[in-house]
């Protein structure tokens, strides 16, 4: 019988999170206050976060103790199993060993509770009585609902209305865990009422939902807000994934050649990657790959490698191309190169070349996800399909190069609440909307001499 799962006992769970900020060879620039242009201070954020979380957001301490109360909740599903994907390996027929961290075993079905639980805990000990947040399709909202219930905190989730209607099951999960799930825009906040006054049929947006959740926190006594991705403290909490994987690979006497994850806001990717980034910073040979969609790149290169707004604010020429010549350039801001929507730590590691970003077309990702489901059984979340496409790609590269490789990746969540996306894929509604190569080339050529931010 061939071994498939590599398990850690409860007592082997890591007792500290790893903070990659401590090991960055070049420091990150601090975020600037939009009004003053000065570095953000703790006081700027204390209206929405408790001070213990703000301290972690700014911390450069390498190891941060995980409180016993958090460990006790983690033990409900952690340490998560490390699997060897033997069936997928056979299907691919490439000279690779593929290992994955199964984060779909959490009660909410994804990696998100790794951050939700410490957030609820730190709020509880800081005296917070109630938490608000926003959610798109509901992965974060459901994880935080569960975590708040565990620590006896009421939770209100503003869910973007279009997803509230399209994705009823996550809303039901939130309700099952005792949270209020409100379709946004709502009449509960001024921000929501303003939108509804102008656009009564507004389907909502993440921006509106964030505004509602923050307004609720700022204007209600003893209420704080939680954010599930991008920020430093979120990535810190997620490092438990990579720390466990490190131990599990050690149990096998192996070290990965390639570590991979899918990149949305960067939290699950950083979770598996940062402990290995630490090794790489200190001289270890390991390739670290972040996979994102070609359609909406945040890190990889395209004609619009940076968000449109970033271009508008930082590069006067590009908006002329995109918006026409009546555009009046905004003053150049000093923010510099960044990848909007991506965690600043991940953006920094990409710039410093510790991470290699790769992009995959949405059809390729679903193709990989279906291959996975039909070989390994578990149905991946659509985001997880991006890393699966990257794993297939890496395996094929190994075959072409005639090299044996050990691949480790984070299987960030299951897709059982996202089956409508699979339905759209099977029905051919998700298409590879690709311009002909020469059109993309034309677009690239048109802007090739323009200054880059």
């Amino acid at each position: 019988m061939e071994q498939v799962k590599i398990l850690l006992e409860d007592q082997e769970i890591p007792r500290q999170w790893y903070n990659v900020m401590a090991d960055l060879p070049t420091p990150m620039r601090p975020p600037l206050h939009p009004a003053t242009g000065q570095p953000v201070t703790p006081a700027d954020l204390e209206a929405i976060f408790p001070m213990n979380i703000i301290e972690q957001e700014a911390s450069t301490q390498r190891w941060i103790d995980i409180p016993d109360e958090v460990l006790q909740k983690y033990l409900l599903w952690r340490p998560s199993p490390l699997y060897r994907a033997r069936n997928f390996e056979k299907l691919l027929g490439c000279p690779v060993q593929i290992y994955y961290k199964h984060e779909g075993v959490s009660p909410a079905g994804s990696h998100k509770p790794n951050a939700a639980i410490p957030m609820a805990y730190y709020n509880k000990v800081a005296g917070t009585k109630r938490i608000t947040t926003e959610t798109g399709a509901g992965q974060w909202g459901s994880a935080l609902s569960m975590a708040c219930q565990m620590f006896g905190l009421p939770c209100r989730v503003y869910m973007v209305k279009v997803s509230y209607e399209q994705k009823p099951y996550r809303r039901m999960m939130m309700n099952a865990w005792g949270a209020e799930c409100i379709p946004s825009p709502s009449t509960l906040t001024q921000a929501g009422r303003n939108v509804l006054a102008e656009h009564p049929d507004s389907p909502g947006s993440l921006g509106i939902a964030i505004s509602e959740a923050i307004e609720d926190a700022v204007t209600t006594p003893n209420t704080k807000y939680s954010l599930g991705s991008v920020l430093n403290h979120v990535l810190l909490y997620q490092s438990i994934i990579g720390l466990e994987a490190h131990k599990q690979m050690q149990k096998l006497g192996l070290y990965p050649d390639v570590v991979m994850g899918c990149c949305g806001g960067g939290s699950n990717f950083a979770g598996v990657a940062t402990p290995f980034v630490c090794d790489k910073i200190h001289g270890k040979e390991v390739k670290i790959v972040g996979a994102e969609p070609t359609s909406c790149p945040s890190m990889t290169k395209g004609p619009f490698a940076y968000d449109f707004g970033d271009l508008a604010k930082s590069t006067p020429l590009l908006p002329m191309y995109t918006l026409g010549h009546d555009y009046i350039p905004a003053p150049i801001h000093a923010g510099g190169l960044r990848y909007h929507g991506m965690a600043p730590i991940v953006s920094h590691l990409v710039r410093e070349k510790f991470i290699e970003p790769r992009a995959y077309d949405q059809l390729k990702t679903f193709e990989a996800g279906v291959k996975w489901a039909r070989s390994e059984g578990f149905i991946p979340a659509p985001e997880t399909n991006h890393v699966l496409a990257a794993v297939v790609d890496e395996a094929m590269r190994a075959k072409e190069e005639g090299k044996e490789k050990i691949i480790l990746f984070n299987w960030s969540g299951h897709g059982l609440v996202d089956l409508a996306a699979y339905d759209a894929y099977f029905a051919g509604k998700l298409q590879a909307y690709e311009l002909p190569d020469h059109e993309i080339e034309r677009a690239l050529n048109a802007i090739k001499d323009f200054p880059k931010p």
Partner: protein
Amino acid sequence: MKTEHDHKLIRCPKLGDEMTFGYCLQEAGDLPCPRIVSCWFRAFDVAKVLEEHLTSEQRQRFALSAPGDKVSSLIEIIERAKKPS
């Protein structure tokens, strides 16, 4: 605004859900989502569609509409929420 592309579906990286181009066009009220160009440039000439469908004033506001980094946008929202309505 209506376009011939409104029905086309894409997985929205902000929401984690399948959304139509029609949604992207009005994600920010009367303005498109700030990510619309980077999400759709491979599919068709989205910049041309925006030029055709946005007024000059909308184009100006659109160009300036995207938030900065996450912490800065959180602070902007906090300050806005603190102001009396």
